[in-house]
């Protein structure tokens, strides 16, 4: 798992993000709000791809793509 792969998966899942436009430093809220639907789609993606559970607080507290990626990586390592 690396952050480029993660970015590609997110870009693929969300139609409103143009492929290639997201970087590790991108601010999530510049692209979309964490309304209920976007949150569920993201949570599903992370759960199915990485087997990691993300909750509403995680989303609210994350500013950048790297923040989200860090949560996933930390949780994946703590489980493994």
């Amino acid at each position: 798992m690396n952050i480029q792969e993660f970015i590609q998966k997110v870009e693929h899942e969300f139609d409103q993000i143009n492929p290639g436009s997201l970087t590790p430093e991108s601010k999530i809220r510049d692209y979309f709000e964490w309304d209920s639907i976007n949150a569920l789609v993201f949570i599903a993606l992370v759960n199915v791809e990485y087997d990691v559970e993300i909750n509403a607080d995680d989303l609210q507290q994350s500013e950048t793509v790297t923040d989200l990626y860090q949560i996933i990586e930390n949780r994946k390592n703590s489980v493994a």
Partner: protein
Amino acid sequence: MGLFSIANCRIAGASACVPVNVVNNADYEYLAPSEREMLIKTTGVAHRRVADATTTSADLALQSAQHLMQSMQWNASDIDLLVLVTQTGDYLMPATSRLLQHRLGCPKHCITLDVNSGCSGFVDGLAVASALVSSAGFKKALLLTAEIPSRYASPTDKSTFPLFGDAAAAVALTSDKDAAPLFFNLQTDGSAYEAIMIPDGGMRSPVHPVDSFRLNTFAPGIERNRLQLALDGIKVFNFSLREVAPNIRDLFSFAGKELTDADHYVFHQANMLIIDSVRKKLGLEKELFPISIDRYGNTSSASIPLTMVSELSHELSSKKQQLLFSGFGVGLAWGSCLAETSHIFVPELLEV
């Protein structure tokens, strides 16, 4: 132990009934058109059926039961057991199955029971009904599910209102020594009971003339009172992703079968994103998962038998089928059942 098997009980038929009134979520004016489109795409609910204001769960259950009995040439006088799964009974008391005994014309020795269960309700009800059929040797029993969730969803709550549809279903069970065993895995986590609930109107928090009816805003587009359904989408979603796949894997292994041994995996039609995500976690093909949520929405305990009738009637009536049922939600409760059916009666979906 949530894992068990029931012998000597056969699923002999299934019917379902939906209100004729179709509601199109593309017309849900409370949301902006782009948001409606996103909602339909993600949840899968394009259309749903809504009962008129005078129709009750007993009305729908009655129609569905009579439709099935007619196709199987069953007489009401022969019915030994009626189990009704519903969370939208006609009255707080008595239980709605009692009324159905009379309205169906079943004899006074017919046992009637309500099961208060929602998303996992069909599997719960099947466990209760088949256990009674098996131990008592009943010749003819009916498992009914009936739900009118449209009545308790707030029109100004986008997290519930556009998802739910009304429906009822009936399944015929018979005592049969040659029947393949039904395998069950039923589980509960009551600590998360607040994730899906109607807060007021019960004995913990009786209806208050002012507070119960006050509209509270929880987030943009999520506005409801305390007599309406509250659903914590993210919590329920994470619960489903965490619990459903292991529950199903454990069931197959308990039954001595491979995960891929079922012909169809009939899931509670909660929403498309949940069904698809759990399916991917199980590593199973899309074609094995019949889907009816696009036309009928989430119909709570009716969704599994409704999907059997609307999507699998040909397979069920013409050959042997190995079926996996999985229901998950309110409680929180979740359960699965592995059942074998062979040439069962499946009359056409009834619209009333």
